């Protein structure tokens, strides 16, 4: 049922008639939502707060850009490799750092995210440095972005209700209890990190194909904060909330594009206001369909 709804939304986004401007917004929405789903799995469902996930977007974007521009590889394998490289780096980083808990992981992730960005900035022979990497072909059409979003969305929504999803929630709510129940919490936390890195990597690779140009400063701490903030805004532990939050923030930022000077001011004030007025986020830890009346059977209320 949920899969069908998702597929329908996908079809509507892919084939509804739109102006070029609206198409651009849809592409951006899909890209941001893919990254938000990844971060939501890690932060909302596993309880690992990250402030460095923009770095995985950067890795995906640069991998895809280098493969398509330098080596003339077809964009589809390049985008997938973007995700894979992000996963590989996440694994290297995750082995030692996932032992850290709470604020310490968040701070370590800032350090790692900045370190990755600085490497990209200084490894000029590979990445063309701080001035950016131009000339990426526009492979992220509306259809491609929506297809990726729909496919990855369906996978993600099934994942959070799978055995792994329940393991993640258990280890989020009480790690000690979860490991006493026999869950291998370190391994499920690692899986969550790897999956979220893959989502961010693919999202970054698609972003490169949409913007035709990438730059290390596009993936700085501000972007990482935005990813986590969007998830918190939607509601920790709510995947549809993350999508809603991401869509709202993307549209609001788009709406204020004309007064770009005030855009960041509004964004900052919005972050503070959301935290003050509704820290549990738009949906709390419930999903959109939990709000539907007269639901028959299934599902456990949190």
């Amino acid at each position, binding site marked *: 049922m949920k899969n069908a709804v998702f597929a329908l939304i996908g079809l509507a986004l892919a084939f509804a008639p739109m102006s070029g401007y609206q198409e651009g917004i849809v592409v951006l929405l899909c890209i941001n939502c893919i990254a938000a789903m990844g971060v939501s799995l890690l932060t909302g469902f596993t309880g690992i707060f990250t402030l460095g996930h923009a770095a995985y977007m950067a890795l995906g974007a640069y991998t895809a850009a280098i493969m398509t521009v330098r080596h003339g590889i077809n964009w589809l394998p390049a985008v997938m490799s973007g995700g894979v490289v992000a996963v590989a780096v996440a694994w290297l980083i995750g082995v030692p750092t996932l032992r850290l808990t709470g604020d310490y992981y968040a701070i370590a992730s800032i350090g790692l995210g900045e370190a990755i960005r600085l490497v990209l900035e200084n490894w000029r022979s590979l990445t063309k440095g701080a001035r950016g990497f131009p000339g990426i072909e526009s492979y992220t059409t509306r259809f491609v972005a929506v297809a990726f979003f729909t496919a990855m969305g369906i996978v993600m929504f099934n994942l959070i209700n799978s055995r792994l999803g329940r393991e993640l929630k258990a280890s989020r709510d009480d790690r000690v209890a979860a*490991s006493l129940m026999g869950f291998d919490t370190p391994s499920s936390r690692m899986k969550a990190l790897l999956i979220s890195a893959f989502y961010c990597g693919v999202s970054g690779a698609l972003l490169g194909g949409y913007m035709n140009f990438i730059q290390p400063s596009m993936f700085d701490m501000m972007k990482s904060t935005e990813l986590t903030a969007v998830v918190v805004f939607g509601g920790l532990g709510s995947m549809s909330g993350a999508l809603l939050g991401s869509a709202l923030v993307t549209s609001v930022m788009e709406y204020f594009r004309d007064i770009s000077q005030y855009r960041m*001011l509004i964004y900052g004030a919005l972050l503070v206001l959301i935290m003050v007025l509704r*820290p549990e986020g738009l949906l709390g830890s419930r999903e959109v369909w939990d709000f539907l009346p007269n639901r028959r059977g299934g599902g456990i209320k949190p």
Partner: protein
Amino acid sequence: MDFNFSTLFQQVINGLSLGSVYALIAVGYSLVYSILSFSNFAHGGFLVVGGYICYGLLTGFDVAFGREVLLSVPSMGGIWLAGLGAMAGAGAVAVLTERLAYKPIREHTSMTLYLLIASMGVSIVIENIFVILVGGRFRALPQGTFPAATFDLGGGVTVNASDLLSLGFAVFFLGGLQFFLMRTRWGLAIRAAACDLRTAGLMGVNVSRLIGIVFFVAGILAAVGGVFLSARYTLYPQLGGITTKAFVAAVIGGLGSLPGAVVGSLLLGLAEMLTAGFVSSQMRDLVVFSMLVIMLLIKPAGFFGKQISDKI
């Protein structure tokens, strides 16, 4: 680059001076962390507020309003008055931030993540208020704000008077903070609250006022750091980004530990300047963040931090 002792000595002096400025920032940040256990990312904003108030007082605020709205203060005590104004202003902004943004969150949730994100929001707001108000240009404090003299120590080693000044002021303010924490009633209350905020409240400490005082002190220290940073690097709205390094220093020293913040800052300043002197100044930031990551892997609690009891 060749290794030689005069470069080494020179960079050690520069490193200590830079580290002392980091220390001013890191100590305020760590103080807030020790009470509320969240990373206050708006701390960099307080620093920028301090820097711009100082600049404004020295130049009569002509940047913000297009004309001098005040008689500029150089004739009336110059940097001293401007510095005092900066400290008071940044302290006030810090208290205001706490009251408007953090207090409502503190009161209905115990999740520090919400405070963390709100603090990111505040830092974005402060930065962009200055972008809108005065523009993103780099501004240098007026000539003659700090003595420009340099002392030659022989062998090609020179020391700037402003470096010595920042070192001296850092020692003075850190000493003052130590006195405040160790010898006054509010200092005792703050130390108690750092152990356990709730219990301190139950013992009759006015927690709300205590948190206000902590933010005011943190704001003052940030303003001093901001003035010296703008003397060193010029002033711009994104100057607060340098606080990330002070965070790193505080983590290396042990979050919430004030001696740790000072030691971490000095180490970081030295590492940065030695990298700049002997490797390349582009590697500075990379070294800083690598130090953070290595420290978190080896000893996540930092040099002086409380042991983390969670061991899985």
